[in-house]
């Protein structure tokens, strides 16, 4: 069954291109422009994820979010906002959002995040992560590839853990900055790419099968290449 996403966005053009991008990814998409209608729909329809703009006609996005959470609806929500500052993000996440994306965003960024949200239910936190012959023990913080120990700095470890937990999904630079660096603002630099380069040297060098891949214009993904 197709994964069903609700887009709540008052600007019609924006709503349409988000819908187009998500449909290209194979999602089933509904669009709404009004906060009150959206809240009513969310309460009765089991969507897999909601893309919710904060500025809406009628009820605003934060209010929709608070109401649906108060109603016990646990559908993952990606908040979209015109305000990209730290405080608004914290406010959104405190209101019960699962993720937050400031405008303007890259379409790949949006689809990557929606994909991550829609699959969130299936995630299990296992202490030992494995991709191919690479294992990461999240308790002892030891990484091994084909029985060979890999020495990692704290940040490299956090980066590897995040990528391995998201195995098979593309992680954008912005997502990595948020989850690994805890930066909720754009540091305006290529710090992620440089760390990825270092990590790649440690885990993929001298190995026939590469595990850490770049996806052009989107970000990075860990998987066993087919």
């Amino acid at each position, binding site marked *: 069954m197709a994964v069903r996403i609700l887009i709540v966005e008052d*600007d019609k*053009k*924006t709503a349409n*291109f*988000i819908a187009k*991008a998500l449909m290209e990814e194979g999602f089933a998409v509904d669009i709404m422009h009004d906060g009150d209608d959206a809240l009513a729909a969310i309460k009765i329809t089991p969507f897999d994820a909601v893309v919710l703009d904060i*500025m809406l006609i009628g009820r605003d996005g934060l209010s929709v979010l608070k109401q649906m959470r108060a109603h016990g609806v646990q559908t993952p929500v990606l908040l979209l906002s*015109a*305000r*990209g*500052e*730290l*405080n608004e993000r914290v406010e959104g996440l405190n209101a019960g959002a699962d993720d937050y994306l*400031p*405008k*303007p*965003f*890259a*379409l*790949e960024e949006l689809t990557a995040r929606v994909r991550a949200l829609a699959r969130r239910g299936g995630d299990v936190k296992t202490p030992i992560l494995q991709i191919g012959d690479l294992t990461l023990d999240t308790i002892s913080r030891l990484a091994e590839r084909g029985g060979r120990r890999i020495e990692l700095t704290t*940040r490299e470890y956090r980066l590897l853990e995040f990528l391995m937990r998201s195995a098979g999904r593309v992680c954008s630079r912005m997502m990595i900055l948020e989850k690994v660096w*805890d*930066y*909720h*603002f*754009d*540091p*305006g*630099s*290529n*710090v992620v790419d*440089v*760390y990825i380069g270092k990590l790649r040297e440690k885990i993929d060098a001298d190995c026939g099968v590469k595990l850490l891949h770049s996806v052009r214009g989107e970000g990075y993904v860990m998987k066993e290449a087919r």
Partner: protein
Amino acid sequence: MTITKRLGIGYAIMAATCLCLLAWLGYHEFVAEKAAFAARGVSDLHEDTSAEFSTVFFLGLVPVMLGLGWLWTRHVLAPLGALTRAAEQIESNNLRMPLPRSMNDDEVGKLNAVFSAMTTRLDESFQQIREFTLHASHELKTPLTVMRAQLETVLRENQSLPGTQTEWIRGQIDEVNRLAKIVDSLTLLTKADAGLVTLERKPVRFDELVQEAFEDALVLAHPQHLQVTLDECAGVLLTGDRHRLRQMLLILADNAVKYNCPGGGIHIALRELGDVAELEITNDGDTISPETQRRLFNRFARGENATQKAEGCGLGLTIAQWIVHAHGGNIELRSDAEKKTSALVRLPLASKT
């Protein structure tokens, strides 16, 4: 010299003159004359005592009246003092603070009324500016979102575009992002002006943040082959907002990389001086004149020779300064003759209690 002081001195001089006169008269009347009568052997004390007494009495009253007058003047001028103190407290974010009112309809009262009207007008215009920028943020971001999405769609759906056109579209996307960043920064500063941004007040190990910033600076500086050193990193505990302090550190580290000369260096030092933490980030680069050093904290200010090479938006240092001030510290730039420029940040340590 204040009016109160000038009047006070005037009154004091007049009072002193009167007292001298009184002393002389008293001496003349009671001592000298008595001596003269005594010399003549006459006891004539009843002659005109009452007239002399009233002269002395009225002359003695003058300094008392002057003293009372001075106290009265002080009382009348007191509202002016209160108004001055209140005006000193006024800043853009507390214009609604009520000014002390004088009870009667005198000149000071009128001054008060005029002043209140002026601050109210100022407050209204500040309020308009705030609302304008907040709405502007939303109204500007929506078209930017659409523009970016359309440009990306063009790129994705036309994989066979010539390289120059692809570059051109990527350039447009970069500009859209830059505009969005400026809108965000302006919104932040506007909200900060309005006192609408609340900072966390939690214990923060600042040295850990500096250590992280150092590691990031190493990475940022790598492509330009800059030498980055952490010369000192004293363990200091601050009270503040961890995210904001990291943002400030990253702005300074990023500036130190951006405005460096090829093959230059960056030196970071964190020291504990008494009850303040002092952070110094020094880089090699062109000397900045003292006027420019102060100006660089203004919105959209750029250094004389920085405009061509760096792609900043001219708001980084303003934000860094706001963060430092919000933590009760201060920040300044210093240049020396050896083409070294330092950003110097002083932040109060967490109180030991």
